[in-house]
């Protein structure tokens, strides 16, 4: 009988699964990775969304260009965060690869969180593209000293959207048509998180819901920075965004762990 050859330490195994495993699974499961899908979906559609709302705002005489540029340029990260993470986790079910994965002794936290890193980078790319085209086409000019703060707000918001997407992806391990849930979540965030409509204009109950969603605090911070409010004044919003994203990511992992356990009880793995 021959033997196993296991990697030297649990720590190196964790990071290999996190980085290498995360990247491979992203290439395997992210539908829009080919340029034919990536360019129209991740760049084309967001560009037209920004242009649409900026020109709508200008025509209707509501909001400033910066209001819509910042709101929409940050919001478009949620496309990668929500749909990308839903694909990265829930597609294991449709590919019927969940059973072989769960039959391995791999570290589940690394397996789960590692999928978020490429998605986070995709989300950042999308935001960067949104701000660049806004600078080129819509005369968006944030002050230079506020750029690092704006970049931090974008990073934190992209991460929190990824955390939220992880939760939706985990639900997809059990719910058959999780992309319906993702669609609803995506457009609900467009409505509730202050992207197009100031949160203060929403009914109080919806304002409360908005506080628990990613984007809300990140967009508020981004707008304040673009208006020259200074980094320090946006720290509470950035921290809140981080907290919301972290809470969703933690909930996502707990859901994943719960579904793995309950899947062993119910036999639900790979049931299409």
């Amino acid at each position, binding site marked *: 009988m021959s033997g196993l050859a296991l990697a030297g330490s649990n720590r190196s195994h964790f990071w290999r699964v996190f980085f290498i495993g995360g990247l491979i699974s992203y290439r395997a499961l992210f539908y829009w990775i080919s340029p034919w899908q990536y360019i129209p979906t991740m760049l084309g559609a967001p560009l037209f969304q920004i242009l649409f709302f900026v020109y709508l705002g200008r025509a209707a005489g509501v909001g400033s260009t910066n209001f819509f540029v910042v709101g929409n340029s940050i919001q478009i990260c949620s496309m990668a965060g929500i749909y990308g993470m839903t694909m990265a986790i829930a597609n294991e079910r449709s590919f019927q690869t969940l*059973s*072989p994965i769960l039959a391995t002794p791999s570290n589940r936290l690394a397996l789960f969180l590692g999928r978020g890193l490429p998605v986070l980078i995709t989300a950042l790319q999308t935001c960067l593209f949104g701000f660049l085209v806004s600078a080129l086409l819509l005369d968006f000019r944030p002050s230079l000293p506020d750029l690092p703060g704006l970049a931090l707000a974008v990073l934190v918001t992209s991460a929190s959207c990824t955390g939220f997407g992880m939760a939706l992806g985990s639900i997809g391990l059990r719910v058959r048509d999780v992309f319906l849930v993702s669609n609803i979540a995506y457009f609900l965030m467009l409505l509730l998180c202050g992207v197009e409509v100031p949160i203060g204009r929403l009914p109080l109950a919806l304002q409360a819901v908005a506080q628990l969603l990613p984007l809300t605090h990140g967009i508020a911070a981004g707008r304040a920075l673009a208006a020259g409010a200074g980094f320090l004044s946006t720290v509470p919003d950035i921290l809140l965004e981080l907290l919301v994203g972290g809470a969703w990511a933690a909930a996502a992992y707990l859901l994943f762990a719960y579904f793995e356990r309950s899947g062993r009880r119910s*036999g639900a793995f790979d049931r299409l």
Partner: protein
Amino acid sequence: MTVVPAGTEAPSRVTDRTSIRYTPLPLSSSHPAASALAVEVHGLRRTYRTTTGTLRRRRLEVEAVRGIDLQIARGQLFGLLGPNGAGKTTTIRVLCTLLLPTAGTVRVLGLDVVSEAKSVRRQIGYVFGGDRGLYDRLSAYDNLRYFAELYALEPSLLRRRIGQVLEVVGLTGREKERVEGFSRGMRQRLHLARGLLHDPPVLFFDEPTIGVDPVGAREVRQLISELARAGKTILLTTHYMFEADSLCDRIAVISKGAIVAEGSPSQLKAAASDRTVVEVKAYGISDAVVESIRSLAGVQSVAMEVSDQAQLLVVQVSDADQLTGRLMQLLEGVRVDRIATREPTLEDAYVALVTAA
């Protein structure tokens, strides 16, 4: 249940394996050595809960496995045969730690599949049939690379090991191609390669040749045979009797969630030696005629296969001389192409066991 003692007969595995050589990993680490048995299953029960109806939802319980016992010695190639829904896959999924038993104890190399699941996973390889379960957009190499990481293969060994398993399954040279362009047989071989990556001492094959063309299926069988020769413990489920007959040291027949017979292939065949098989190739046998044949005294079982227009009626009888005449009487008016008698095969024994269960 018929239980035949183990170890009385030599295995009759396929021998034409000149093109396949299994290479184990060069490094060794600790294996659980507590148990002489590779697999121990005692009183395994598994119940599924399901619901029906939309407005008035009704809960149903389906008992997939009803208290089975299995013991597989280290290095044994054990076949689990049974019709669809008999409980084969459920049993394998419990052994692979993917399902929890409703009752009973299940151990792999002495490790409990419930409380020591992670340790069990290091010791097993799980290979299932069908063309799903792979990442279509990745190359064969990347599919294996991903699982090599999940199995925590030593980075310095990883590339070489992937090369080895690709060679073993005959996919060398195709590793850079995307799996979406692979035939079913190639996909099945990739499944096998994935199951062998970490060189597990215990392998579970769940219908590994299903849907694979005859040449591909033969290669898979050769590989399984080679793995058994390399000392692996293998549990194989299959619908194909000749496959089990040619490969397995021991076989258990499972029907409706219970083991109905266990023994070596020839011992199981002997269980049907008290009968003769009458095969009738004909056209236009009605269901009523089949029922009439079934009700004849001395008829053990009746099965009918349909191929194009022709029907093949397979009747197991205790006394062929006496019953052939009666059979022909009942087939009057039916166009009979051929009638022949023969000794029972493992498949006949299987049909007899499953029909009687």
